[in-house]
């Protein structure tokens, strides 16, 4: 039988990039997202056995860790600074990308916590069941929540026609 360690390795390779990507999109801070994703998987390893639904467990732990950091202010999110840190390569394409990044970041930050989590988790391929279990929501309503979150995001982003020409 496969050992816990072996199963952890497989799980890590599959889910670490996704958990990191969601946290990075939520926080807007790649360093903080890396810390949180790492801590999430450390906790999974220290647990010593896999949960029934590893995806839901990881979502729940990652979001709780983020909430703790966010609310206690132990780490400051550096939301808008990312755009200024990005290398300024050349004019138009880079400026457009920088502006899009700023607008996406601003829209995500203005979403409610629940909308942001649902939108980003689904965008990274987590199932409705995993999202519901991870966030403590009723699975039967995830589709409606998701549609509302998407609409809110697009409204906050601005006129989508501008974004897509």
């Amino acid at each position, binding site marked *: 039988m496969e050992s816990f360690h072996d199963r*952890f*390795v497989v799980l890590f390779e599959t889910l670490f990039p996704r958990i*990191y990507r969601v946290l990075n999109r939520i926080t*807007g801070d790649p360093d903080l997202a*890396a810390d949180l994703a790492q801590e999430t998987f450390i906790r999974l*390893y220290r647990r010593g056995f896999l949960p029934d639904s590893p995806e839901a467990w990881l979502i729940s732990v990652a979001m709780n860790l983020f909430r703790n950091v966010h609310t206690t202010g132990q780490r400051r999110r550096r939301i808008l600074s990312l755009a200024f840190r990005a290398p300024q390569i050349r004019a138009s394409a880079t400026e457009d990308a920088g502006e899009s*990044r700023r607008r996406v970041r601003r829209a995500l930050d203005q979403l409610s916590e629940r909308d942001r989590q649902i939108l980003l988790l689904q965008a990274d391929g987590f199932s409705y069941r995993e999202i519901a279990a991870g966030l403590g929501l009723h699975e039967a309503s995830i589709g*409606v929540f998701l549609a509302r979150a*998407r609409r809110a995001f697009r409204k906050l982003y601005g006129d*989508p026609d501008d974004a897509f020409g």
Partner: protein
Amino acid sequence: MHLDEESIQRLLNGELEPSAETPAHLHLSQCAECRARLEAATREEEETHTLLRFADHPVPAWSAETIAARARSLSPAHGMRRAAGILVVIGLAGAAYAVPGSPLPKWAAHAVSWIRESIGVPPAQAPEAGVPKDRGSGMSGIAVSPGKNIVILFVSSQSEGNVRVSLSEEKDIVVRGPSGSANFTSEPERLVIHNEGSNESYEIAVPRNASRVEIRVGDSTIFLKEGSALSPQNPSVLSLRSTR
């Protein structure tokens, strides 16, 4: 009758229940309005996902081995936070459902002792001071709400000992064992009994109306109640010894 928003989203994301797929597709084939809504939702999702990629950064190139190594070499401060977390869990569980003779104070005392060890503080001269002794039968326990689904997990198999499972008319699951025989943590839909090194026996009373209750020893399921169906049908006394 048009498809509701939940159904449109589930169609889009492949999340419809199999039994709902055929009727939904049949409706789509006959309803231009719903087809248009689905197409609009598809387009909006694609555009949203395109926008979200602007927020991405490269994924750190860490290996599972690195993370596992970090997990194994915990700093004292890290251990202290973990212990504090367990205390919080115990506190929450106890506040919700401590039954008479609860072992919670004793477990909390053990955790406090562990915290002291973690941060290098010598144990108090009388570590049990202030902790009520179990003056009853020597058995103590905890009760938790079964919710819709709960897994009761014995972390380790034992060389001796068993678990007596009975059905009750109560609302809560009650787990009892000899005082000090095990520690536990409570998570959503899970009660974990840390029985490493124990050879004691336990009692679990399962509410007759609980939806789903599973008892496991490690990876092995030794008892499952789904609705009124029981496996095994007459559980009574189940071994905690390894079956492998």
